[in-house]
């Protein structure tokens, strides 16, 4: 277990950028530096793993398609020894790989072409989540208050009654807020590893949970956002 240390004030956090497109890497280097990071570029999977071992980064951005392998393998290998946030870069048509990368431990994905601002925002969110926040007893997001210790939920100070399963679902989502939780990850955390393929009951419980916590008459869910075919994410 290697929880990423908070970067010392003197040194900007290092971000490993694994992409075989030199132009993208060149531009990301500037963008990341501007946002206060130091980019460590790597063109191939093996180069990425070597660099990560020599100069452990605080986070990694990994392209799914690499000349000597794929980003899923890189993610899995990094995950074996590090809890650092990992963002994968994917393109339309690589959905299957994207889900595999998330299952292998990636924290989030971002679809090419992306705006640099969005990338930086996701990176910062992932780093914030990685910072220890285990003993946060009450989480309040946009009018929704979740008291993890007392297992109470209030919206705009109105108490909401949840079943134990609904509360567990909400707890997992809220504690990982902003992070994409795949169906399998949610099922494993709430029901247990033997239920990871029962997506239908998960959908039903999510629907009931939404009916209880989401404000009525809104255009779409405010708190629990669906990532079609992949999973759910509690909005920041």
């Amino acid at each position, binding site marked *: 277990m290697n929880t990423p240390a908070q970067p010392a004030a003197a040194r900007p956090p290092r971000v490993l950028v694994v992409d075989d497109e030199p132009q*993208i890497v060149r531009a990301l280097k500037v963008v990341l530096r501007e946002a206060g990071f130091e980019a460590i570029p790597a*063109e191939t999977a093996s180069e990425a793993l070597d660099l990560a071992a020599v100069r452990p980064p605080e986070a990694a951005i990994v392209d799914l398609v690499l000349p000597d392998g794929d980003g899923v393998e890189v993610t899995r290998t990094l995950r074996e020894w590090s809890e650092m946030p990992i963002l994968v870069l994917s393109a339309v*048509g690589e959905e299957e790989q994207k889900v595999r990368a998330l299952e292998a431990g990636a924290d989030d994905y971002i679809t090419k072409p992306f705006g640099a601002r969005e990338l930086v925002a996701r990176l910062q969110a992932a780093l914030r989540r990685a910072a220890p926040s285990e003993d946060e007893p009450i989480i309040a997001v946009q009018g929704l208050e979740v008291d993890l210790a007392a297992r109470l939920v209030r919206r705009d100070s109105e108490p909401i009654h949840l079943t134990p399963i609904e509360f567990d679902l909400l707890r997992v989502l809220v504690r990982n807020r902003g992070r994409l939780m795949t169906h399998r990850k949610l099922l494993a955390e709430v029901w247990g590893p033997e239920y990871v393929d029962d997506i239908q009951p998960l959908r039903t419980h999510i629907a009931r949970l939404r009916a209880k916590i989401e404000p009525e008459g809104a255009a779409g869910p405010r708190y629990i956002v669906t990532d079609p075919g992949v999973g759910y994410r509690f909005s920041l």
Partner: protein
Amino acid sequence: MRPLTFLLATEPPPRRAGVLVAVVAVALCTLLIYPLKQVAPVVSLGVVYLLAVLIVSAIWGALLGVFTAVLSAAAFNFFHLPPVGHFEIRNSSNWVALITFVVAAALVSSIAEVTRARTRDADARRREADLAAEMARLLLRGNNLAEALPTAAARLAQALELNSAAIEMEAVEGDERSVAFPLREGTRRLGTLLVGTDTSEQSLRRLQERVVPALEALLSAALERERLLGGVVETAALRRADTVKTALLRAVSHDLRSPLTAISAAGEAVGSPSLSPQEREEMAAVIQEEARRLSRLVDNLLDLSRLEAGAAEPRRDWTSVEDLIRAALRELAARPEEFSLSIDPDLPLVSVDPVQMERAFVNVLENARRHSGGFPVSVRGRAVRSLAHARARTVTAGGGRRAEEQAEEPTPAGDRVIVRVVDRGPGIPPAQLERVFEPFYRAGTSAGGHRGSGLGLAIARGFAEANAGSLHVESLPGQGAAFVFELPLSEPGEESPA
């Protein structure tokens, strides 16, 4: 019984031989009776003649059989029955002999005739079965029914001893030279069997009764088979087209997004306050280069769809190969150290579509640069001519009599411009040599080696071929690759440049 099968040969020997055999046999029997008289009463020796009668009737039939019977009775009467030396029918034994001979002749000849007919019939059936089997092989095995029909008709004519036979796949009326048998399946007309009008009545009947139904069944099966085969081929083609479309979507998805991402990120970076002047230049270069890459990709996609749709009709013009190559290098924004050019200054003009051939050169040169591992790519151009050709060309150049000379000119197999684009990269394994020209194929997985769209070489070959030229690759792994364009120097019947 085997040795006697000649007795039942399907076709009897000539009748003249029969008469001769009858006379000789009767004479021999007459002579044979002389010694036999010593051991048996003469009256009973009449049976000896039965031998002659049986043999002749079995082989030559009833008519000669009866003739032999009468001749035997006469010879017996004249030579052996008292009074010897006279024809005299005195007692019933004469009549008995005559009647016995005649009855035996009639009986044996008719049995022989029946057997002979059966043999003939069996032979005919065997031939028909053989014919049907062979027709089935001819019509049902090949891949092209139309090509098999003349052979099948010839075989039919041979088997049925017809002077001419033809099978047509359409409704044809008989005329003064041919008799037409319509071939149908139910009410559907499949085609027509045509035979010469000189065919005998018997053969015509046999054709109608035996051959036509078999032929109808076979043709119907062959047509059905052809239809199903067509379906299979079509399905395979559709499936291939589908695979190509999926690959296209993937390629477009990945290859359009990468440059877009770079442009978008570089665009954002340009706005950064901390940007150094050098970085600003770098970002501008990223944007320009990636925009060019995008535009080339869009061009390639359009080219490929045009080539796949068969809509790449070249607009030919007399063009300098060197100009084409230099334009391609400009398009690629090539640096001088990236390519080393060696082009014969006397290279004749070629008649090609300059736009298409420039695209072909751009793609091959870009591919070579990408794989050359930093070494310069060598581009060499020269003309190759056969001697006979050189003579014809001299005349052409001298006077304007091209049209007349053209008739004598051999096909321009050896008369062409060759451009070799040689890189010093890792080369291509033999198994991949042809595959590199397939759309979306990307060679190898070497680091940084998959930045192409996988379309360029397919397009280059497509355009080279659309312009009557060719593009092939020669390579040994580890020793680089040579892409070789060959463009014909002239197309027969075309005007030379003024």
